[in-house]
Structures are given as structure tokens and as C-alpha cells.
């Protein structure tokens, strides 16, 4: 429980850092290439987490959720890749995406030691926490900071999709206890 908590705080800190990260524009906010990289990284992390769940979990509902995460986040990331290509933007690695990746690796290592119901609970709890943090970062930082209209629109659609995932994960957490 403490582990989960410290991880949530770490993740929140990493995403809050998006505000201060980078060479930045006037407001000190992340630039579009940085935002694109952060959003893509956040999606890729959830796909990796889902693939781990598909390897370890035997619970039909957890596996169905993980399948949904792979499919939806891949769809969003495919859109994001197509958009940055169209806009001729090169996604730019930054401290926020690096921190996110590092956090996710630690979480995966932690979950890899679990199995059965303990894994399912840890995975679903982390999905709730992760989507909360990512949704909050999109809402408060990434969407308001994005300057390109198409990028902003894609992030807004992404937020709606990820809010759906949060509700799904919360439902799963409440029914599997």
C-alpha cells in the first residue's frame, strides 16, 4: 500500500514537472514537441502494463480490461504519430517523459513479483492511480499548454477516452475486492 502511494506521488510529481520542464515558451510550459512525447510515452507505458497483465493475469475481467487498454492506447498513439508526421513535428524527449518511463519500469518490476489475485489487485489499483494522474496532467497542463489546434483536439479526445478507462478501472477495482 505504501509502495503504491509513493508511486502515485512520484508519478504526479513527474507530470507536474511538465509545467516547469524544458526550454519552454513564454509561460514556462512544455512545448508541442515535448507534449507530444509526454502523451505518447504515457500511452506506451499503459500498453506495456497491459501486456504484462496479459502475461500474468488469469482473471477474465482483468484480461478484457488489459485488451481494451492495448487497443485504445495503440489507436490514440497511432493518431498521435500520424499527426506529428503531418505537422512535421519531431517529438522531443524531456525530463517528464524520462521520469514517467523510469517510474513505469519500477512499477513493472514490482508487479512482476506478484501473481494471482495479488497481481490483479495491484495492476487494477495502479491503473486507477495512473489514469487519474495522466487525466489530471492532460487537463491541467498538457491540453492548456498545447498551441497547435489539431494536437489540442487529439489530446482532448484522448482525455475523454482515458476518463472512460478510469471509470472502467474503478469499476473493476470495486467489483474484484
Amino acid at each position, binding site marked *: 500500500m505504501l509502495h503504491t502511494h509513493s508511486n502515485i506521488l512520484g508519478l504526479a510529481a513527474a507530470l507536474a514537472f511538465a509545467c516547469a520542464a524544458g526550454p519552454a515558451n513564454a509561460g514556462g510550459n512544455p512545448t508541442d514537441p515535448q507534449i507530444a512525447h509526454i502523451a505518447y510515452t504515457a500511452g506506451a507505458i499503459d500498453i506495456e502494463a497491459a501486456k504484462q497483465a496479459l502475461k500474468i493475469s488469469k482473471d477474465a475481467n482483468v484480461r*478484457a480490461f488489459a485488451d*481494451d487498454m492495448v*487497443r*485504445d492506447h495503440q*489507436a*490514440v498513439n497511432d*493518431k498521435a504519430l500520424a499527426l506529428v508526421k503531418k505537422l512535421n513535428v519531431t517529438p522531443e524527449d524531456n525530463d517528464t517523459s524520462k521520469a514517467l518511463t523510469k517510474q513505469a519500469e519500477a512499477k513493472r518490476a514490482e508487479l512482476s513479483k506478484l501473481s494471482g489475485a495479488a497481481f490483479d489487485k495491484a495492476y487494477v489499483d495502479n491503473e486507477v492511480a495512473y489514469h487519474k494522474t495522466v487525466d489530471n496532467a492532460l487537463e491541467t497542463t498538457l491540453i492548456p499548454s498545447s498551441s497547435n489546434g489539431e494536437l489540442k483536439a487529439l489530446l482532448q*479526445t484522448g482525455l*475523454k*477516452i482515458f*476518463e*472512460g*478507462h478510469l*471509470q*472502467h478501472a474503478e*469499476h473493476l477495482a470495486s467489483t474484484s475486492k
Partner: protein
Amino acid sequence: MRMRWCCPAFGALAIFAGAAIAGAVVPIAITDLVFSPAEITVKVGDTVEWTNNDFVDHTATATDGEWDVAIPSGKSAMQQMAKAGTITYFCRVHPGMTGKIHVVSG
């Protein structure tokens, strides 16, 4: 030998098709994770057709478990309303997406 198995199946299909076109087809669009209209009234025997304009897949899943319709990205899917009553439904992938269908007898 093949015909004997084939014919009853074809007959059943014809009956099913006949039933499906008996009522009206009522469209519901899905755009940006919203069913619209979110609430409709149809007659028993009418068919609801959802069209998914989003780039992610959705479902229309009756809360009472009566039906569960997969609506892939960019595709349409149909479900006939067999009996009178009010049905609430949601998307299994994005449970915040909800809709309501009032089915009234013809």
C-alpha cells in the same frame, strides 16, 4: 446431403431477415464518446443502428445483460428491440458513455 443441412439454415435466415425489416431502423451516432441522441423512443420490432465515428472501438451493452453489441471504429452495428420497456445501456470500454431506449408496443 449438403442440401438437407443447407436448406433449413437458409430458411431460418430468411425468417430472421424478414423480422429485421419489419420495423424501422433508428440511427444513433457515436461521436467523441457520446451516444446521440442519448435517449430515444422506438417501437417493439424496430432496430437500433449505432454508427461509430470515433477512432476507437465501442460497445452498446444493455445494463440488464439482454444484449451486447460491438461497434468497431468506423463501423455500424444493429440490434432489434424485441420487447417493450426501458433499456439503459453503456459502453463496456468507456462506461461513462450511456444511453437509454424506451421501447413501446406498436
